[in-house]
């Protein structure tokens, strides 16, 4: 009896509020999209990105001066190219969705550029680093706020050469992402000329057993093992390296900069090198603001390495829609003229291929279970030494 009474009251109250809100928000609804890997081995990055994009939409909806109310449509690309093409087609085919912030995995981003172009759907990439995504074709629909892997690998090669290591074995995954890393790192290392590559091994992105490759590498006895790939196999390779007794430096890329890497390895993660474009989140121009608002929302997961970029991408989309209205073609035209637009990751300028330049590259080393900046670490000062470092 009492239950139905309470239920009725609650229902009526909710109805009243809904009506009030409904009447008050007479703004038009606009849909924007987000695509990222929400399941699978790199899901923490995808979820972090989604939360950040969601944060951007929420802040905008809470802003009374905004012209429209925004609804975020989220799709999962599972870090698989074929799934990505399917969800990209689905999102782009839906005429109600105006624009989207897309993709953390490079393999998915490069597979979908043609789809977005086919449907005339403007997107801003927030986490994928393969240069080809913006540079292979000149598609007006595709833009990117984060940097490409070229600079990352330049800095990587520099550090390795500077530390005096002479031989490097390369393991990379066979998606375009891993292949890209392999290409740019090898070129950079060759240019500096102090270290040489003694072997290159391609592995599949979901490979379980690396005994074969690592046994061959053990025979080659390199100082450094360079890894171009993502966290799940990064964890496996580092752990199996230890099992085979290989004592080389594990030198990786932005693909493993994630809490999942440290959780997966525990103490074995110590001494891993990694590199990423962009300053660490709290050192970004809008970093403090972003972290404050993010923590206030109490999401289950941290924004991870690229959350700030997802926020910036989504904010840019929202700004654009506010300026020119919910029309895909107008948004594309607007995004063609982005020069020094302020954002939490700094001023964004898109070149003629829609690519933003991110100058800063952060060098990381895992110290005591955290990704610490190299220059501030005990490895740089000499208190601790990487395996084989003189």
């Amino acid at each position, binding site marked *: 009896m009492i239950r139905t009474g309470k239920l009725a009251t609650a229902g009526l109250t909710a109805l009243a509020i809904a009506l009030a809100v409904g009447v008050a928000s007479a703004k038009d609804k606009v849909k924007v999209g987000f695509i990222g890997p929400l399941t*699978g081995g790199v899901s923490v990055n995808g979820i972090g990105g989604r939360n950040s994009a969601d944060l951007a939409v929420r802040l905008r909806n809470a802003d009374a001066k905004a012209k429209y109310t925004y609804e975020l449509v989220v799709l999962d690309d599972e870090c698989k190219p074929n799934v990505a093409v399917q969800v990209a087609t689905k999102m782009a085919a839906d005429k109600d969705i105006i624009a989207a912030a897309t993709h953390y995995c490079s393999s998915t981003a490069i597979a979908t550029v043609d789809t977005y172009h086919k449907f005339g759907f403007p997107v801003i990439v927030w986490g994928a680093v393969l240069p080809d995504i913006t540079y292979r074709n000149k598609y007006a629909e595709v833009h990117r706020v984060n940097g490409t892997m070229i600079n990352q690998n330049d800095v990587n090669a520099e550090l390795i050469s500077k530390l005096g290591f002479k031989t490097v074995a390369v393991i990379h995954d066979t998606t375009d992402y891993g292949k890209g890393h392999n290409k740019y790192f090898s070129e950079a290392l060759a240019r500096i000329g102090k270290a040489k590559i003694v072997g290159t091994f391609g592995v599949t992105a979901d490979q379980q057993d690396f005994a074969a490759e690592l046994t061959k590498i053990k025979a080659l006895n390199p100082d450094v093992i360079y890894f171009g790939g993502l966290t799940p196999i990064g964890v*496996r390779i580092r752990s199996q390296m230890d099992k085979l007794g290989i004592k080389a430096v594990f030198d990786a890329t932005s693909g493993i900069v994630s809490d999942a890497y440290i959780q997966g390895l525990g103490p074995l993660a110590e001494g891993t090198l990694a590199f990423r474009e962009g300053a660490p989140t709290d050192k970004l121009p809008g970093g403090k603001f972003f972290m404050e608002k993010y923590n206030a929302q109490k999401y289950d997961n941290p924004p991870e390495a690229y959350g700030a970029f997802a926020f910036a991408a989504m904010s840019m989309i929202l700004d654009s829609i506010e300026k020119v209205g919910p029309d895909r073609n107008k948004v594309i035209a607007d995004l063609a003229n982005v020069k020094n637009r302020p954002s939490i990751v700094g001023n964004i300028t898109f070149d003629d291929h829609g690519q933003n330049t991110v100058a800063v590259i952060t060098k990381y080393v895992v110290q005591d279970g955290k990704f610490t900046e190299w220059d501030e670490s005990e490895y740089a000062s000499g208190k601790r030494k990487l395996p084989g470092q003189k």
Partner: protein
Amino acid sequence: MDLGLFAQYVMNGLMLGMMYALVAVGFTLFFGVLDVIKFSHGDVLTVGAFTALATFAGLNVLGLKSQWFDLAIMLVLATLAMALLGMLIARYLVMPLRSAPPLNTLLITLMLGTVLRESVRLFYPQGANPKPFPALLPRSSIDLGEFNLRLDNVLMLAAGVAVIVGLQYLLNRTKLGLAIRAVAQDEETARTMGINFTAIVLVTFAIGSGLAAFAGVMDGLYYNEVNFGIGLYLGVVGFSAAIIGGLGSIYGAILGGFLFAGLQTVGTVMLPFASAYKDVFAFAVVIAIMAWRPTGLIREKISERV
């Protein structure tokens, strides 16, 4: 290739072979007793590994952190749980379909495998991500030149051998084993002799599934990781290994398991482009063997009533 490197390859092959053999033995047991291929065997392995993982998490919460104790509890719990699961599968899914065409049993177990795998992926917290498995075995190792002999590998191999020897003992020297072999040979006569058919079938499934749990824990310890897909691959490989060795023969299954691992290792060594093609190579050989000897290397005696 120098001796140390060769020894390393041999060790890798032996570890893989042991796991494949354990799975293959399970397949062969089920086939022998009920003439069924239980395709969900590999996924039972996955569930076993995750049960062990969950047990470990539970033990951690309770504050019990001793290595050997944890490992023992995990093994026992996982094995018992999987034995129970195996019995349920036998009782409710396989036995009711004995009068149906064998294709149906094959299909139902394939689908059951999918159900198990997807359940782990969807219902275990963050099941879609690979999950680190605790390293509960001692991590010391000896360096013999190029070859790094690890204590935990040796322990696992020894444990695997012990389990297989124990199984052989069970089958060949105990009354239970006698009953199992009788049922495998001729169901009707065994029943006439007073053997409780249903009980024996359930026990066999329990044993086989318990083996799967053991293999699952071994797999977790070897790779320090479990994910929801390990069972699918191991299941197919184990099945192929059992087929190669000839279904219904325990020795054949063990032989098949090590043969398959050997094939993969040889493929890795011989083919210049590393291990990329090793699976392709191994499966191609399986197809070729099927073409050459349709009932496996150890011939199965089929008789058919016309």
